């Protein structure tokens, strides 16, 4: 039950944040610097939602950082964990 509460509380916090649609905020720059570490940790199976809780939460509410994340996660997964490399 506790984890349910944690995720719902996080949702409430996220819903309280104005969504960034067309501009990069100062905080976004610092989050984007962290993205390679985040993406690598996620690919390695680490619990990134706990280790990088702020960044994980930010990705839910910032479409620009989410788009950066998606691009980098796709690139990294294709380069390091592609089926062809198996």
């Amino acid at each position, binding site marked *: 039950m506790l984890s349910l509460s944690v995720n719902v509380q996080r949702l409430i916090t996220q819903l309280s944040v104005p969504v960034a649609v067309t501009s990069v905020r100062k905080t976004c720059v610092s989050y984007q610097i962290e993205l390679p570490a985040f993406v*690598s940790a996620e*690919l*390695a199976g680490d619990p990134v939602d706990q280790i990088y809780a702020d960044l994980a939460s930010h990705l*839910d509410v910032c479409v620009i950082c989410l788009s950066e994340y998606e691009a980098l996660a796709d690139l990294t997964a294709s380069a390091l964990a592609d089926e062809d490399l198996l």
Partner: protein
Amino acid sequence: MLKSDLLDTLAFDYARCCQCVRQYLTAQGWQLADPLELASQIWQDLSAPLPSESTAVKAIQTQVWQRYAVFLHENCRQPGSDRCEQAWTELYRWLRQQAHRFTADRDEQDSLVQLAISDLQARLEQSPLKAPRALWAYALQTMRAKMIDEHRRRTAVMRGDGLELSLEEISAGQSGPAESDWEEHISDHETSERSVEDHVANEQVRQQLRDFFRTHLATDLQLRVAEEHFLNGLSPQEIARLLGKKPHEIRMIKARIVQTLHHLPPEAHRKLLDILGLPPGEDLC
């Protein structure tokens, strides 16, 4: 069951581990580390139960790219040594191998890799990466940034949502509503977290949230992800394993769910407030 017993049943032994390591290193063009030494370290450290051959192979490969990134990062930061030069050559070749993901034009690929390598050399000369195992992702991010810079230089404008926006404006960042609002909202909500926790630990609320998601989420996959994450407390990685998808695919879906909930019509918005047990008048956004 001991690790060795488990792996024996999978016919996954040290020899197979060495084969996987060698195969992955070859596919990536990584030649600086001794495959046997690397395989031996990985084999010793494999502790998690490996339920299948494919899981075992994945786990080994994940270990290889992480360890090799640390190894390469270390060598790239020893200027003057032969190893350093070899390390940069290898990183260059690896990026060259990845460049087709950014552009089909071979000349552009060459230029992109050169720019990225210069940037990386300057960066690593300054200081080490905080997370050396992220070297690959960092290098890819650098190359992507160079590609965007190049695109900006050529076009100076891009389109978004039907509006023509200057890139300078975008990168300068019009922050919109005060950035500090976020922190304030977070602390505003801290006091009500305990009551929320109590409130959601209730089957009735779970059912209401489930019904709400069913009404307002667009696809079955969004609904499944919402239920697993918000109702069952699973992380995106756990959901990805459950659904046989990549973690970032689930994270994207989860983000879209949050964005959908962010843009609910006022009536639905109020209903969500009620379900979440927030006091009347406490607006979310």
